[in-house]
């Protein structure tokens, strides 16, 4: 029961992060939001008894993918204009 509540809170946070990362004008913040989503998804993987995928998602989705995004933003521009 506690686990379910914890998972529900995590998923709620994940949704908030996802909406934030799509809606914010600052791409760097958006990327950080994506990273948070990835991290929470990785925790969910662990809860779902998939430790292999959880490791991969934590290292690749949250780590390297974020680095790639940050590099790309550094090469281009940080703010989204309309």
């Amino acid at each position, binding site marked *: 029961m506690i686990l379910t509540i914890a998972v529900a809170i995590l998923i709620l946070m994940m949704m908030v992060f996802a909406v934030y990362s799509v809606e914010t004008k600052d791409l760097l913040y958006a990327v950080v939001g994506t990273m948070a989503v990835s991290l929470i998804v990785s925790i969910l993987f662990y809860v779902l008894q998939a430790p292999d995928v959880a*490791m991969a998602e934590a290292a690749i989705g949250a*780590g390297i993918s974020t680095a790639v995004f940050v590099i790309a933003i550094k*090469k281009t521009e940080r703010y989204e204009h309309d």
Partner: protein
Amino acid sequence: MIKKSIALILIAILFVAIFFTLANDLPFGDNRTTTGVSDKYIYHGVNDTGASNLVTAIVVNYRGFDTLGEVTVLFVAATGVGAVLYNMGRPAGKKRKKTEASLIVRTGSRILFPMMLLFGAYIFVHGHLTPGGGFQGGAVIATAFLFKYVSDTRYHIDHNKFTATESVVGMTFALVGIMGLLLTGYFLFNFLPNGSPGELLSAGIIPIIYVAIGIKVGAELTGILDNMMEVEQ
């Protein structure tokens, strides 16, 4: 504004469709392993392959050819990044302009870098026993190099050596496959003894292939990061 509301309605319909189809047809937590091929993997996996970690057994042994293709996709992506960003301005030999990292990061990286490499190696060497494997270990190794990049502005990797490493391990993978073809008649077929499950030296060719994948993934992800960072404004 109209476009936005139409899109939102469409997406809402899609969301509802996906969610209710899933909830209706594939209830969460049901045992569906008996209807597909999973049953065989679960009950015979350990005997067939000698690997305790069933995910590893599937990735490297049952679907090894698939994994070879995946490694190829990764390689092509790394090459593609290099090709797309090739010759974008930075003359050879010029250093990256970057603010110096703080003393704490620099000192920490010096201590942590070998440990991270060791941890990555640990993950892929024990791929057939514990969670993790070549892809995860390779990613950890790549993050170690990323860390090094962040902390040390003068640090840069030798592309030729990286390429050579990558080619050698890639060829190891293919060669193991071809040896299987020659010795047993099927590509990537296990030709080594399975050993007793749970020991480090078991599971036939799986440790060899996973070590090769680990080094290759590490080298390729590092290559992608390096290629993207090398470009100068």
